[in-house]
């Protein structure tokens, strides 16, 4: 069994059907989809039981009918992407900074770009957006169009 397959089987063994999907795309690329309620437990398991210490980044995705929060973890060269499904009617998720402190900036970015509340995060002020950015305008959401964002810069575009 490859290391990737071993990882997948460990997760399935520990979490059963709280793992919605787990696949090995290719060498060193594992994609796991979990329910939001299992998200923090999965990260904790990976950190404490498997020994994964490095989070490369956290991608937020607006998948039209739901949001996704995907921390990409690095374990012995394998990128383990743990996708948590976040419903749009209640966009919030637990922080993982108490498990892996290095996730601090990445969670701030997901919050400011998508408007997903990160419960327990020590400081959700803007990371990259300016201080005078309008409240409630989350640039990477699909329903926010580029033209709308341009209006902040100039009255008319060529």
């Amino acid at each position: 069994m490859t290391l990737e397959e071993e990882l997948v089987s460990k997760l399935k063994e520990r979490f059963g059907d709280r793992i919605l999907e787990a696949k090995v795309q290719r060498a060193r690329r594992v994609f796991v989809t979990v329910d939001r309620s299992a998200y923090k437990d999965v990260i904790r398991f990976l950190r404490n039981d498997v020994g994964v210490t490095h989070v490369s980044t956290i991608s937020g995705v607006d998948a039209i009918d739901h949001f996704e929060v995907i921390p990409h973890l690095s374990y012995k060269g394998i990128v383990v992407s743990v996708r948590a499904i976040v419903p749009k009617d209640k966009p919030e998720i637990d922080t993982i900074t108490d498990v892996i402190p290095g996730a601090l900036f990445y969670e701030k970015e997901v919050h400011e770009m998508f408007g997903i509340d990160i419960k327990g995060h020590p400081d959700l002020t803007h990371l990259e957006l300016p201080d005078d950015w309008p409240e409630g305008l989350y640039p990477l959401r699909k329903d926010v169009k580029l033209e709308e964002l341009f209006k902040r810069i100039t009255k008319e575009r060529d």
Partner: protein
Amino acid sequence: MSSIVDVPVGPQHPALKEPLNITCYVDGEQVVGAKLRIGYNHRGIEKAGEYQTFIQNLYIAERICGICGIVHAFDLAQATEHIIGKEIPRRADYLRTIGLELNRIHSHLLWLGVAAHEIGFDTLFMYVWRDREVVMDVIEDFTGNRVTYALVTIGGVRRDLPQEKAEKMLRVMDALEETVKKYKEMCLNEKTIRMRCDGVGVLRKEDAIALCAVGPTIRASGVPFDVRADDPHAAYDEIPFKVVTYDTCDVTARILVRIDETLESINIVREAIKRMPSGPIRARLPRAVPVGEGVGRTEAPRGEVIHYVRSNGTDRPFRWKVRAPTLANLLSIPVMLTSKGDYVVYIADVPITFASIDPCLSCTDRAVKFVDVSSGKSWVWTFSQIKRMYWKDKPCWRERP
């Protein structure tokens, strides 16, 4: 323990024009804490990416960072190729490797000059940048441009390396190796450099791991984390090289890691030219990328770069996420700038500590806001003011054993 009182600085200081705001909390000459505010460089590339084709995004990717642009184009291409699921020609892997390593060499030399400038050694800065020009020539010869190469495309590379150019490259690498070895000797033996860098900007191994630092920053803290070795891509699976680590966790270690890596990169370029297979340099891949997701990753000069791509069957990405290495390393700056127990950070250490993570921000002067925790006073000094005050006419402003 005095309370920290933040007094507003007053009208905008003209030097506070940087992509980054640093606030240092001081108690006399000692720095007891630091805070960062980033974001002045935010352009909105990820949003723009959803409105442009994959090919167009390669060009904007390369301009995420002009110094290491090729790594971003490479990661985007790699993630997309993973989704498409086709392998690219082997020769293209080798050519990409040469592009990536030449980029590393130029970037590390650039940084060495900037670091020299930050410890008050402008002469060394001039020498290094003069010597770096031969690398820029070789890059221009190979890719057609000094900066922003447009070498990588989806499916391979756009330019080949003919025999005469490869031979010229080898000659330049040989000469460069001698030069870089001299710089290494200088950095090891020059008393002033050692006095200004030893024990400065310390990032302990446990902190580096907890804060998910990357690149030379974490390798100088003894952690052998290098994406080229852990997650082999391009031709790194076939070309032997050493992952350079040092374990003194300070600025000197970071200087030595980068110099040694430059020497390793010179070797990698030589090996890549020697072992390069013949064949096509590009596979024609479909413009419309099938539904799926991919993660592209490589080791930029500053550390791990990661791109996440999600496609929806069209020729535009549904989602494109980029994480450049400096963001990962910025978290470590407040830790490096906090005095704790025996570890004392002085104001004079601030410029070089900050520069030691090789931040991919503008190379110009930076302003730091200082807040004295006992008096509550605050003021702004630029890096060049700090250097003038502390380094001018003195090898080291404080005595060191």
